[in-house]
């Protein structure tokens, strides 16, 4: 669990809709940015990296929910625009497996796409600054920070959904007169306890961040040794 896939029905409709709108805008921007690349060049690349991310998710390292996501690796290999498109595709497909809600594909794309995009820029920055030969440290650090920032964005989304004036729609906030008598009134007073939620997330996620960072670092190190052209910026 290096990042969370928000499930369906836990966030208010307004923020879910906003997630779709923002994702649509970002996708339009990314598609425009890569419009100069031939479609037949882009599509196989997106296909294979998206597939690789899904394959990564099928390989559970620690049972239950810790699997690798390879989002930062996707960012490093594809560059920010193609990686964002790829993340959307992955989110759409995995939502069909119940892996992250289908209504929140927009929000999940923002969170996971941010990891890929930040991963790319941080990796390029560390590459310049650290100039390490193996690329392990650069990639691992970029992955760790990107995952931390991605999780922070997720927390920001949850926080925003909680402080919204429309919070009556959110989970745990039943509008008067709805739901069973037995689970009605007391819930009106309480929403998601944000500090508690953030604490839980920050206790559970770092293990995933460390694992994912180490693996990303090692993968980049391996690829840099055998095919350095794949992670050079001009490729992206």
């Amino acid at each position, binding site marked *: 669990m290096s990042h969370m896939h928000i499930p369906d029905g*836990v966030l208010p409709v307004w923020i879910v809709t906003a997630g779709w709108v923002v994702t649509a805008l970002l996708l339009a921007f990314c598609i425009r940015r890569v419009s100069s690349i031939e479609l037949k060049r882009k599509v196989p690349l997106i296909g294979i990296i998206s597939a690789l991310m899904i394959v990564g998710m099928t390989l559970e390292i620690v049972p239950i929910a810790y699997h690798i996501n390879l989002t930062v690796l996707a960012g490093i290999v594809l560059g920010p625009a193609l990686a964002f498109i790829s993340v959307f595709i992955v989110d759409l497909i995995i939502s069909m*497996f119940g892996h992250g809600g289908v209504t929140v594909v927009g929000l999940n794309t923002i969170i996971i796409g941010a990891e890929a995009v930040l991963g790319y820029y941080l990796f390029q920055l560390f590459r310049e600054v650290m100039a390490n030969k193996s690329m392990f440290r650069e990639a691992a650090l970029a992955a760790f920070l990107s995952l931390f920032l991605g999780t922070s964005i997720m927390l920001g989304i949850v926080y925003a959904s909680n402080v919204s004036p429309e919070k009556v729609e959110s989970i745990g906030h039943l509008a008067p007169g709805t739901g069973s008598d037995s689970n009605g009134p007391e*819930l009106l007073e309480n929403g998601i306890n944000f500090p508690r939620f953030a604490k839980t997330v920050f206790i559970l996620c770092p293990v995933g961040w460390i694992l994912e960072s180490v693996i990303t670092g090692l993968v980049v190190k391996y690829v840099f040794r055998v095919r350095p052209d794949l992670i050079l910026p001009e490729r992206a």
Partner: protein
Amino acid sequence: MDVSVIDYYANHGSSFLHGARALSKIIFAGLVIASVVISNSFYLLLAVYFSLITMVVWTRLPVLKIVTIAAYPAIFALIFAAASWNGNWLSAGVIVLKALSAALAMVILIVTTPYPDVFSSIDPVLPRIIREGLLLTYRSLFVLLELTDNLVKGLRVRGGLTHGRYIKNVVNFSSGIGLLLVRGLDISEKFYGVLNVRGYSGRISGGGRHEKTGVNDFTALLIGALIFGAALVIKMNGELSAYDRYILAVSLAVLVLSTVYVIHTNTWGRAWKK
């Protein structure tokens, strides 16, 4: 996330849901998810969940496996539930059931509908690059899964993944992923060559199969409409919320009877195309 198993069920099952059109099942899943979003009644959500399990029983696919696949988001939902904990188990249950029911509705769609048919149905609303990307992701996925399978076997056989040597395992595992990435990019080059040779101009799919609407579609849509109708009526009219327990009782009875029938007729877990 057992991609191959899900794909196998979708392509080899022969239930009434397999016979329904992809679009009908997408509408069914949409109606269930809409119900889940608007409903905050624990009993109604549990009834929805039981109804969905009943549908899985009717498909004769392995129920436990499918329910387990769809249970994954419960882990995340539990974190949300823990954060919203107010001492009331029912409110925590609402959060978990929302995630479980929505996921099961999607999983029912995908275990009874091959991905390409789902993609074809949502085709018109997607930009070309995403539409084509989805199709090639699907194709690449199974090529990579085969490679991964060989890779993991190779690592195991050659002592690359050994019990107790976790650091070494992670290093070897990462090299494996690196190799998969390199091979994957070679494959993408090959795909590029194939697209070139075969005259690609932006249309990988032929637009899906021409399916006829029939009684199976009607059944799927009716169940979806009934679930959504119940959620909407209870949402609109608070006084009716007391009836959610009856709905739960009915759904449980249908689940039990369906299970007994399927076991009795010895068709449990058996509905495969030859």
